[in-house]
C-alpha cells in the first residue's frame, strides 16, 4: 500500500447528492464492459450545477465533455457528501474518472459504505469543513500514515480523521477481499 495519494484537487460544496455525482439517466451502462464503463467516467459529477462545479470559481467540469477521464485525483468537499440514493454507480464513477480519494467533513452513510466496501475511493473525513482552504487545480497530497492532507500549492496541512473501523476493509481493497483474508468466504 502506497503511503501517499498525490494529484490535483477538485473542490465542491455541501450536500453533493448522488444525482449530482452520476445523474440517473446514465445508470443504464454496464459496469463491466470496458466500452460502456468509461461513460461513468465521462458523466461523473456532471449533475453538479455549473456555478458549484470546481470551486471557488465554478464552471469547471470534473471530466471535460469529450473525455472519459478527469485530471483530478482528489475531491475536497463540505458536509454530507454522497447523500441521496444508494447507487453504487456514484463512487464507482469517481473511480472510473480517475479519482482515488474524497475528503469531506461528513458523508451520507450509504455512499461511505459503498466507497469502502466496493474499494472505489477512500472516503476521508476532515475535522472541520476545509473546502475553502483549497482551490480547484491546487496540487495536494494525502499522507495515509499520518492521516493528513497537504495543500502543496499553499503549503498548509490539515489533519484527517483516522479511518477507524473500516481501515481494515480499505486496506484489503473492499469487503470481498477483507472477508477472504478473514476466512469468512473462500
Amino acid at each position, binding site marked *: 500500500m502506497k503511503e501517499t495519494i498525490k494529484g490535483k484537487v477538485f473542490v465542491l460544496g455541501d*450536500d453533493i*447528492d448522488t*444525482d*449530482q455525482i452520476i*445523474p*440517473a*439517466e446514465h*445508470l*443504464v*451502462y*454496464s*459496469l*463491466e464492459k470496458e466500452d*460502456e464503463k468509461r461513460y461513468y467516467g465521462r458523466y461523473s459529477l456532471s*449533475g*453538479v*450545477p455549473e456555478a458549484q462545479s470546481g470551486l471557488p470559481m465554478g464552471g469547471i467540469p470534473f471530466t471535460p465533455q469529450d473525455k472519459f477521464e478527469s485530471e483530478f485525483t482528489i475531491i475536497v468537499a463540505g*458536509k*454530507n457528501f454522497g*447523500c*441521496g*440514493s*444508494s*447507487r*453504487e*454507480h456514484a463512487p464507482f464513477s469517481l473511480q472510473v474518472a480517475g479519482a482515488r480519494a474524497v475528503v469531506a467533513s*461528513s*458523508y*451520507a*452513510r*450509504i455512499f461511505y*459504505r*459503498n466507497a469502502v*466496501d*466496493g474499494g472505489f475511493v477512500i472516503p476521508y473525513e476532515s475535522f472541520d469543513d476545509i473546502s475553502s482552504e483549497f482551490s480547484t487545480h491546487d496540487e495536494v497530497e494525502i499522507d495515509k500514515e499520518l492521516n493528513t492532507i497537504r495543500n502543496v500549492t499553499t503549503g498548509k496541512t490539515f489533519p484527517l480523521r483516522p479511518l477507524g*473501523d473500516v481501515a481494515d476493509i480499505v486496506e484489503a481493497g*473492499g*469487503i*470481498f477481499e477483507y*472477508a477472504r483474508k478473514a476466512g*469468512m*468466504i473462500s
Partner: protein
Amino acid sequence: MTLTEKILARAAKRKSVNPGDNVWVDVDILLTHDVCGPPTIGIFKKQFGQDAKVWDKDKLVIIPDHYIFTADKYANRNIDILREFAKEQDLPHYYDVGTDRYKGVCHAAMPEEGFTRPGQVLFGTDSHTCTAGAFGQFATGIGNTDAAFILGTGKLWVKVPPTMKFIFEGEIPPYIMAKDLILQIIGDIGVDGANYRAMEFAGDGVMNMDMEGRMTLTNMVIEGGGKNGVIEPDQTTLDYVNARTNTPFEPLFNDADAVYHSVRVYDSKKLEPMVAKPHSPDNKATVTEVKKTRLDRAYIGSCTGGKLSDFVAAAQIIKGNELRIPTYIVPATTLIREQMKTETIDGETIWDIFVNAGCNMGEASCAACLGGPSDTFGRLNGAEVCISTTNRNFPGRMGSKQSAVYLASPYTVAASAVQGTIADPRDYLPVTV
C-alpha cells in the same frame, strides 16, 4: 434496547447490542431492481463463480421498477439480465415486466406481497428500502457490492445506529398528511440531521395513521440521512401483514428502558401544510409562506406519494375542477392502478376523476421521480417548475438541471394543480375545520 437495537441483536444472535457496535447479521430478505440488480449479479458471479447459486432463493426479491417504459436499449438490456438470472436461479419472487406479475415501484409492492415482516431484517439496493420500517422491520438501503455479498453468504456487517424518536401528540388535523409531518421533521433536522441514525416515529398522531401514511414517514428518513426509519408494530400492522403472508415472523418492540439519542415531541394540532423548496428536501417553508408561487407542472406518484390513499386525497380536491397546469398521475403499483378504477368518490372512480380533469395518466413505475431516460413519462426536460409528491428535489433529480421541484403532500399538489400556483389545501378541501 430500542426496537432497532433488538432486531439487530436477534439477527446477530447476540443477547444485546449497543449503538456503534459493528455486528454481522443474518438477512431475512434482499431486495433489488433493474438499475442495481444487474451490477449486483455481475459482482456476485465474479466473486462466487459463474455457476454460483444464491444463498436462499426464497429470500431474494427482484422487482424491476425504475426504467420500464422506455426505448433506451441499455435500460431494456437490464431487464433481460434480471429475467435471465431469475430463470437460471429458479427464483420464485421475480416480478417480470410485461407479465401479469409486474408490480411497479418495489417499496410499495413489497408490503402488498407480504415481504415487510415485523422484527425481520431487510436490505435493498435502493435508498428508499427504509420504507419497510413502517412495519417494524429493520430495513435499509445498500450498494451493489454489499448486495452481492449477501447473495453469496446471506450475511452483512452493520453498525448499530442510535435512535432518534419523533413523537406526534394528539389528533392530526384533516388538512395535514403524513408528507407534511416528514417535511417538517427534515426541515427541522436538516438533510444530514439523522446521519447514521435510526428515526423512530411514535405518538397517537402516528399510530392512528393507516399503513400507507406510516410508509410516507419511513420512506423519507433517508432524506434526513437516516439509516432506517421504524414504527412499533401494532394491530394495524399485524392485520395488514397477516392478510398478505403466511410466512411466520416474530415482532419486536421497544424495551421500557430503551435509551434514545434524542426525543422530539410535536403538537399535532399546530402542524401546517409544508413544502420543501428547490433544491433540497430540508429547504422547508409553510405553504402559507410560498402561496401563489408560479408553477408549470404538478406530479403525483412514486413510492412515497403514489399510493392509493395519496390518490384518494388528491381526487377529493381535483374532483369536478379544471386544472390550470399539466398534471401527471403515476400509480406506484399495478394493484394501486386497478384500485383507482374501483374506488369511488360520490359515484365517480378516482381514475375517472383524474381523467375527466385532464390529467396525464401513467403506468405503474418510478417514472419521473428520478428523471431517468429522456423518454420517461412526466420527466422535466427543461427549465420547468414542478410541485410533486415525490421524495427528492436535489438539482436535476426529476430530469433537467434547469428544472426546479417543490415537494408537498398530495392535498397541496392537487390544490396547486387546480389553482396553477402553489395553493393551500385548506382553501380547496370540500370540508375544512
